[in-house]
């Protein structure tokens, strides 16, 4: 049995220790906002927070996530400035990558509430979007860093 703490809740999962955390989160626990995209840590669709840092859940064996605080998109508060900014800017198109983008951006703003352009690009460059919403993602991050709402 593996014990996990996700979004402040404790889970016990009967799973082999080397299974990627991603599969446990979305296919066992059905927290499906975390997405599979590439399985090699190159697209960012599976991004979650582990102890507050943005991590690729496809690259972490579930055993290594034991005893750490995991947050998924479902655990990010509804009124989180980044979620509000995402809606205000109408960022998503197909939406598949967006939960990963949001988790990446939320971790960035937690670390640096007013990131520079360079810092935004550095933080977000590992998250792919095939629909081409990058420009809106940037606007939403800037909006959230200003306090979450436009005048």
């Amino acid at each position, binding site marked *: 049995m593996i014990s996990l703490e996700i979004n402040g809740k404790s889970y016990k999962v009967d799973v082999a220790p080397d299974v990627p955390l991603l*599969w446990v989160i979305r296919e066992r626990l059905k927290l499906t906002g975390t997405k599979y995209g590439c399985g*090699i840590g190159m697209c960012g669709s599976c991004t979650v927070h582990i102890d507050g840092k943005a991590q690729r859940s496809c690259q972490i064996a579930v055993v290594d996530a034991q005893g750490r605080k995991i947050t998924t998109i479902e655990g990010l508060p509804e009124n989180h400035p980044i979620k509000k900014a995402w809606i205000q800017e109408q960022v*998503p198109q197909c939406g*598949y990558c*967006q*939960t990963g983008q949001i988790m990446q951006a939320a971790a960035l703003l937690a670390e640096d509430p007013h990131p520079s352009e360079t810092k935004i690009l550095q933080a977000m460059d590992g998250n792919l979007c095939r629909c*081409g919403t990058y420009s*809106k993602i940037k606007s939403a991050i800037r909006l959230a860093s200003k306090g979450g709402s436009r005048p």
Partner: protein
Amino acid sequence: MKTTITRRHFLKITAGAGLSIAVAATPMGYRLLSAGEMEKEPFSFRPSVWLKILPDNMVIVVVNKSEMGQGVYTSLPMIVADELDADWKNVRMEVAPAADAYKDPEWGTQATGGSSSIRHMHEPLRKAGAAAREMLLIAAAREWNVGVKECAVDFGKVRHLTSNRMLTYGQLTNEASKLEVPQNPALKMEKQLRYIGKEIPRFDMHDKVNGTAQFGIDSFLPGMLYAAIIRPPAYEANLVSFNKEAAEGVAGVRAVVPIHSGMAVCADTIDAAWKGRDALKPDWKNARHPDLSTKSLEKDFISHLEIKGIIARNDGDVTSALKAAATRIESVYQLPFLSHATMEPMNCTAHVRPDGCDIWVPTQNQSGVLKTAMQITGLKPEQINVHTTFLGGGFGRRFEKDFVEEALLLSLSTGKPAKLVWKREEDMQNDLYRPMNVSRIQASLDNDGRVTGWSHKIVCPSIFARVFPQYMKNGIDNAAVEGLENMEYEVPNITVEYVRFDTPVPVGFWRSVGSSHNAFTVESFVDELAHAAGKDPLEFRLGLLKKHPRAQRVLQVAAEKAGWGKPMAKGQARGIAYHMSFGSYVAEVAEVSANRKDGTIKVHKVTCAVDCGSTVNPGIVSAQMMGGLTMGLSSALKEKVELADGGVKSANFGDYELLRMSEAPEVDVHIVKSDEKLGGIGEPGVPPVAPAVANAVFTAVGARIRQLPMKPETVLEALKQT
């Protein structure tokens, strides 16, 4: 908002209380029916759109198109809500099941593609909304015993103008549902429109932001098995041996099942299925085309330029024009196979039972899924439920049914629900790609720099021959020559010649299809001609489009907004291109830096002007332009499917790179106000960006890019030839 419903629930809401309107496509136009009239119709009768107003004032619009990011779940209900004068906060949408009733009235099939959702559904949806509005007005007038002309709709209510009495639509549904449906309801005047033309926020935003939007990969059924398939590394290779026992020995693996595409492992969990697949250690032999590679394909495509093709267009006398040329220019352009690379890999969850079948699938092709299920299961259409989920990208890939077929076969052979999720590598290597193609163009200029002749030969595999063989015309695949056979430049002598060259690499529809490649060759070559004629590329284009005011207008707007002609720093330049596709005109100006030393290109900004006729939701139009040009830029700068040893070698985002945020330009979209016929918006943003960037690179450093992608080595090679 809940966006998916089961068929049972759907039937319940349509048959129950309230006012419902069905729209039937007929050869003469559309016929509108109420639920009562529907029930009297013979089984063969086919209504195609439903609108339902419930006693609690909810307005439900059933959407027969797939949501893959292009906003149809919002824009189609907007059209109905506007004619109905509904209160938007009471409007809901529901996803249509796969059924004859929901076929696209123009296509006769239930599918999403060709940037056609609004174009095809606009008229029937407006009529449905307008008919319901008229019925509600009549119902209110009867209720109050006044003339209909004394009543007016007002944001979800009917008002009696002189007494100011009000009844909500919900209160009127019972009376209204007894009325005959008017066949030619008056449509609103433009100034009466409440929603159309406004940036209404999308219905699907909250679910996509909080993670609850259900994509195909988020489907779960009790007792389901996960399936994973091992596939040949080369086209048509045979599986000669594999370690079945090792796979069966993996904890959780239930079955190893042969399937036409390879060998499948079915297991209780996804990790067990994937581990089981890894344990198969297959040995493949006899690749049918062992020498197939990127290099061999390039050689073959070029050599096919010498083969006589089929004439797709023949205006005037090109041979004489080329002979009489003061200046003659010839160029060869080459574009690679491209992968769709939707962020959500192909997947399908199917449950086949003796008496029925349910399929959860992100599909652009409900009719195709239904037909596939009928063929595989032998069931009747009414026994098959297709549940369309959100699509994590479509771009044409999800028009195909290969992954649906596999899930159905695996459910059938295991007797359990089967959830099949392709690995990214499977998705990349088993795509039906945007066709590789090569064009040779010859043109003649007279002494005044006017274009007198244009001879265009394209070597390209056929998509239609596989997908729509019935639409092949005299051996011509319209997808291969679109943008060429209808090229708008006013050149007196033009030929377009098509050499069909099918390779072992399967091809399919990729966002903007033929325009995705032909816009690059045409717009790059026009730029070559402009420079050869010593003219400004914008002025040169305008001079060739005197009879095409919409083309002129988007070019002028994009150029003006981008500051065309204003000086830029050394090594930087602007490039321009335009293309008409799917009924919409789009011009784009790219601001680019090119580095002579290392061949790198940086695209700073793209300014886009679009004329798509009247617009339903300008926010969605802008977003589609931005998304389309960003995806087009990704392919222009980075994407190429590599082949070796008879199969696809590109496997994941490490060796098939997509554009990342640091490479994405600033985007500035301008919608040109237009009263023209509605055009599409999902695809037309893609085609102009690649040539706009290439044309900017030429102006910046003098390198003419005739091959995509514009990787540094391609730019350096082009620089050498200057």
